[in-house]
């Protein structure tokens, strides 16, 4: 670094890493799939060939053809259009739910890992108790108690359920960080605990948090799909993948497999693409 300035060195390092990332096959595949679904989520109505609720009574349960690429369901609705448009609900809800879980988990994990002692003991035992209850049961109980399903409730439930996992991961990272001397140095300039937690320690556990976030996001996709499959996830009638599978799966026995297969593939492809991306990020940024 004799001639170039540090800023240039920083640029070089980042651009070198990005260059490696761009060559990473897992990343290319994952990012392409995810990009497709994000575009679908944003511009779904433009890509879709028909309205999601348009029913063609002439062709009920018709097999994939040039007219209906993924075939039609028992109401004569275009499966392709419903899969494309359905991406928005699942992606937005999963993202928001994971964000909530990451926020709550990071806050609790930071505090527990930094303060240690009794607070840490009690909090972690409570979180372990929560993570022992299956997500589906909590969701079904919540729907039964409230009397209807809604996306807000789904977000709250999944966020709540994810909190212990995120908290545990963040806490483990914070335990190591808080032993480092920059924390002592912050105390030696009279910093308050809040500042040390969020301005000093948090940025250093951020990579861990980002990886945990992507892993959780993959699970969230499954969780949202599962809940809507069980009818406990979203408002009735919304064109999301889980509901589509739930509405059509019994048709498989009459050899009408397309209305079930394509939404299922969509769910799997989003989950896989997120995992591919998180693996590639882990590798390239040496986390």
């Amino acid at each position, binding site marked *: *670094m*004799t001639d170039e*300035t*540090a*800023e240039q*060195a*920083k640029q070089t*390092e980042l651009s*070198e*890493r990005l*260059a*490696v990332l761009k*060559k990473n096959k897992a990343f290319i595949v994952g990012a392409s799939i995810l990009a497709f679904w994000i575009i679908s989520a944003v511009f779904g109505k433009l890509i879709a060939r028909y309205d999601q609720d348009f029913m063609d009574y002439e062709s009920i349960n018709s097999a994939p053809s040039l007219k209906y690429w993924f075939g039609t369901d028992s109401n004569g609705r275009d499966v392709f259009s419903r899969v494309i448009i359905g991406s928005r609900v699942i992606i937005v809800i999963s993202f928001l739910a994971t964000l909530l879980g990451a926020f709550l988990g990071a806050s609790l994990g930071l505090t527990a890992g930094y303060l240690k002692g009794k607070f840490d003991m009690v909090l972690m035992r409570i979180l372990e108790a929560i993570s022992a209850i299956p997500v589906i049961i909590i969701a079904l109980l919540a729907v039964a108690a409230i009397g209807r399903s809604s996306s807000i409730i789904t977000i709250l439930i999944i966020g709540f359920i994810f909190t212990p996992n995120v908290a545990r991961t963040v806490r483990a990272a914070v335990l190591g960080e808080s032993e*480092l*001397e*920059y924390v*002592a*140095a*912050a*105390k*030696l*300039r*009279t*910093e308050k605990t809040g500042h040390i937690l969020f301005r*000093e320690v948090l*940025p*250093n556990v*951020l990579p861990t948090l980002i990886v945990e976030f992507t892993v959780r996001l993959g699970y969230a996709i499954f969780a949202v799909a599962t809940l809507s499959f069980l009818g406990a996830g979203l408002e009735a009638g919304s064109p999301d993948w889980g509901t589509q599978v739930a509405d059509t799966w019994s048709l498989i026995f009459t050899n009408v497999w397309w209305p079930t297969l394509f939404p299922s593939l969509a769910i799997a492809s989003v989950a896989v693409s997120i995992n591919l991306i998180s693996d590639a990020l882990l590798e390239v940024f040496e986390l």
Partner: protein
Amino acid sequence: MSTANTPTLELRNLEVSYTVRGIDRQVLRDVSLSIAPGEAYGLVGESGCGKSTAAFAAMRYLPRNGKITAGSILFEGKNIVDIGEGDVAKLRRSAISMVYQNPATALNPTIRIGKQIAEVFVLNGASKTDALEMAQAALTRVQISDPAQVMRRYAHQLSGGMAQRVVIAMALASNPRLLVMDEPTTGLDATVEAEVLDLVRELRRDTGTAVLFISHNLGVIRNMCDRVGVLYAGALVEQGATADLFNNPSHPYTVGLLRCIPRGGLHKSVDRLDTIPGTPPALGTHFDGCVFADRCALVEDKCRSTQPQMVNISGSHIARCFHSDKASGLPRSVEQIEIKATSTSRTANVGDGLLNVSHLSKVFTQDGHQVRVINDVSLTLGVGETLGLVGESGSGKTTIAKLVLGLVAPEEGGVVTLDGKGLAKTLNRRDVQDVGAMQIVFQNPDQALNRRHSVTRIVSRAVERLRGFSVRSSIDRAHELLLGMRVEASLHGARPVQLSGGLKQRVAIARAFAGAPQIVLCDEPTSALDVSVQAAILNLLVDLQKHDKTSFIFISHDLGVVRYISDRIAVLYLGRVVEFGTSQRVFGGPFHPYTEALLSSVPNIDGTTRKRIPLTGVVPSPSNPPSGCVLNPRCPRKVGSGYESLCESEEPNLNEVEPGHFMRCHIPMAKLKQLQN
């Protein structure tokens, strides 16, 4: 297979590259060297120069992103660059062994020591029962006390010195013809290092194994090796018989390296330390000319355009330099720093006792046991003075620093007085002035600087909190401080990871000075740095002290460094001060027996041999200190002093044996003087 004149290991024009972030970066450049059977070859150089890469290449053990791009590695005349994995494994099993830097990670924590060593014998064809017997014999050979008992232990139950002996025993188990030792004593205390080196020397005499010895410590190399090679930026710049090379260094880099080291009792009041200007090149830099040209005081145009060849100095002594005849006359490099307003001028009220620490103790609870790690420590420090704290690891040096700073609360009865004012026990009950008045420079700047914050922010935030400046003026002040510490403006926006070790430590020093401190504690501030960088940092600290009368508490295990920078010295053993006095008194003798042993264990760089006063056994656990004088089971002077029974029954007080010189020993000064002559 090998005849008398076939070298055990020969590297011929070896080039090695690492692929980092998709780009090949050259690490070794045209390295040629050979090691004869029974010879010890030392490879020295600063960090990042390729020492370990050379060692790993010799064992065909490069990391996955490393590859040999040119040249050959001949083991007993046979090229091993292209042989298959199976043959490599066979070589490592029976002919080449390695001793790593960190014995704690070189041993498997889940397998008992005996079984671990026996595995080597089993691999070479011994039966399981025979192998266990052979393992015990191997432990006996490395002079471990009670080998039968060590056989049953796990790695974590061994001290660092014992673990390294076990690693050496394993390495020697296959009767290797080449032993590669990569910084084998770097993590060990001086007294343990001396013992391990004695052992290696003895084993070498007995076995006649060829050794490739890698170290950054010139003193160790000088005492251990027959021939030495100096690496810089992956190129071998000088090579020769040890005495020739040290007495007549002929490459400007070697000359500079030797001059950087504080030695021969040099003190800050007498002279500054030499440094090597500039910084080592980044990994994989391409050179048209000499690799050292950018930092060389003798550089000419030719040096930048043409690669110098090895020239013969005398006998086998060679140097890769156009000016090897002029190297010894290399102009001195003592960077003079103009200190620009580092802190506000202040007047201390009390002449002598700026800081008074009295009866400081600390008890930690460990597995339900009370462990007294600091026992009744009292110290004083004057304005503009440096107090050096020395002692082996576990002696409580760092804990004392934390107690003084208030990061850890002392036990009842311990008092810290600054400028006549008693300080609160813990940091959060001290006011901002008191906190700012005492700051610390930590050992490891990688951990001490928040890697997510910019250099400016690290320093300006400290100014803001400790001086109450506005954000704007804190930033201005931070830039001033950083420039004063020689951190260029172009680096102020950088993150710590983008800086070299020396620059990071300068940032840490700037932060410590942000609150206009009266006292700065330095906890091994240079032990993670190369010697040339260490010299520059020590010069900086001395300049700062001269400029604004800052006092230092300087913790180090390196006695040369402590001697250079300290006005007073406190020698610690098991949380107790065993000797305290002015630098001249403590280093002038007569010595406390522990100080004597410490001093004698430092490998000497000037080649003079000195009788080593061994400190036998291991440091006892502070949870179960020996009765009487805590040093007595290891004391080199107890036996024959006539005070044996007193030493074993009663703990001595810290007595003033002469004005300003305190010692915790039953043996009177006159008797010590007589014993030590």
